[in-house]
């Protein structure tokens, strides 16, 4: 599961080198960004889709993400992290921007199959009543806290990747996740 979601982490060295060449080419000629777009379109689209209300909106934000990526690619520096993490970060910024200005209800996609791991973390049994309590509890989290839970438990992203997307240190991600889970526990015990 993790491997399929974070496939860039398992790339062979040759592929990473190939991608570095593509990035360099795109820095010189925006049209050369096409192979990168082809490779990452679907995963960025899905990332956005899970966080917004409709496919059309996801399309707008996804397109904007790649336009911004093209605009900023000259300043991109490979820091040993997947290129996709950089794209995710741009997408996340676009999503945040959208909610900040449009003031619409933030969309959080929850699949029942994603919940057991979170339940395990907060040490409660999974049942429908508990699911509902958990969902209600999440309404009381901040946008940042929800992002962390989404990425860690629903999308099974690694701490390092979350750190890159949210522009935080790994230690900070761990601390924040720990606090968020603690907060959920507390809220559940109060409900």
């Amino acid at each position, binding site marked *: 599961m993790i491997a399929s979601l974070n496939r860039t982490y398992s790339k062979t060295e040759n592929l990473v080198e190939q991608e570095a060449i593509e990035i360099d080419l795109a820095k010189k000629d925006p049209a050369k960004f096409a192979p990168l777009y082809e490779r990452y379109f679907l995963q960025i689209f899905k990332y956005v889709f899970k966080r917004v209300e409709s496919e059309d909106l996801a399309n*707008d934000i996804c397109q904007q993400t790649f*336009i911004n990526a093209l605009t900023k690619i000259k300043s991109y520096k490979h820091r040993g992290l997947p290129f996709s993490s950089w794209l995710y970060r741009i997408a996340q910024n676009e999503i945040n921007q959208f909610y900040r200005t449009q003031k619409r209800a933030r969309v959080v996609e929850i699949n029942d199959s994603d919940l057991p791991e979170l339940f395990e973390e907060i040490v409660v049994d999974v049942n429908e009543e508990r699911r509902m309590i958990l969902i209600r509890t999440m309404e009381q989290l901040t946008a940042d806290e929800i992002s962390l839970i989404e990425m860690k438990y629903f999308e099974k992203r690694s701490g390092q990747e979350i750190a890159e997307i949210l522009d935080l240190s790994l230690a900070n991600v761990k601390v924040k996740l720990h606090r968020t889970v603690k907060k959920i526990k507390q809220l559940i015990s109060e409900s």
Partner: protein
Amino acid sequence: MTHIKFERNRKMPSDQELLKHKNFDSVLKGYQAGSAPTKWFNSAKMWGGIVATACIAGVGIYLWVNSGSDEVKSQETTLTENTTTEELNHDLSEIYQSTSEHFSIDPSKDTILITANGSVINIPAHGFDTECKSVNIKVNEIDDPVKMFQSKIDMAYDSAGTKYHFESAGMIEIRAFGNDEEIQLAKGKEVNIALVTNTVEPSYNLYHKTESNWDYLGDANTIFQPESVVESNQLVANDVQNDEVVAIKKGVVKVGKLNPSYPTFDVDVSRHEELKSFQGLVFQVDPGEKDFQEDFYLVSWDHILLDKKDGNYFINLSRGGTKYTFKVKPVMNQKDYQNYVQKNKNSQTFYDQMSNRKKLYKQEFKQQNLIFDYDQSAQSYMVSNAVNEEVKYQIASKSRRLFSVQSLGVINCDHVLPEDIKKQVELAQFQFKKGSQPLTPELTYVIIPGINSLFTFEGNGAKYYAKNGKTKVWVTTNGRIGIVKEVNSKNFETVALYDVKQGIAEIEKYVEN
């Protein structure tokens, strides 16, 4: 609290369906045009408006004060010499539309709504004059001049024939709809509101917007309550303005001056909320720790962790199987320490002021007591959002204003400005060269720095400018936003005209500063 819509077990479209959105040419065109739809203009319709505006592109406009005697620098703008007054006044009303939050409620039940801004609205059961089973509530919070500009709310106030101008602490527009028709509160019903405002000044009254003026609702129902009233461990995380000040005040952190004859440990304090905001904080081992050897400072430890127990800090040093724990003190070098002491002093003064106010407001609160139950609800909301267990008090630049209304619409917490306030500004007219026909905006909006208000002038050729030479004045016209920096009655040092998109972004920066 985040306004969330949960999509449970939503089906993700197939890859094939999603791939139909793939269009690199469009991305490339967007990049080349530099025409990315931005935060303000996400819909295609709005974007169309921007493009239409941008069509009036060109360079070279000379801006003259209407007096005609003082030439100013020419700037590249989006206007051309062929621009007409009509184009200047191009209707971009779609772009000006403000964004609102929408809630759907069951009117037969008591409901508490929390807005993205943290304001709380308490709607009583059967509060509306309707048979509808579902009522849609639209909420728009207007707390800065940009939002006033977008909402087109006139801040002029006519009191028995005398014209005044409002400055706002915060404004909220609440409207209710049943079956798509606007509905009002039922007779005798009240909605209680805790409006988050960006000032702690108490001198604001309550007004309700009518078609052409404002109705004074009085100050009796307006209870100013700074966040410092909120006691114990129950604080809203995103309202905490200054962790450091809070930490100092509550004695959570006692910082000492660094002893220069001893080395220091620079430790990751990210696990300790109360320490995170201190500048230049390092740690020195307590002289009472007899087992500590100075050589320990030189060891390359695998892990150096900071712990806190009973108000004291301890450092855990480990390398391989060797572990030590020593009591340490947070310290600062001379310069940082002096800053810290000064800040402490300032915060003490502020804290004392707030404590005195707190007593006053508590008294007022008891006298008013009409919204006591409501405030309990707000408190319970805060409990659920408490994150920092060590913070006992908050010293904030924000406040909540608690009041009740019997009629929905636009409710403004504001006070009137001095009568001569409008004389402080003059409207710059737009001319291409001396003696040419000036472009006359139909409406001109002016924001005066430091005043949370929006001044509206009808285009009549009058001129307005800041009397204070160092003041910045921002002139926004209907369809164009002119930004005039460093203005005095003689010279414009910098003048720029922006299209709406860029202009609003500039105004945002200005308001933030």
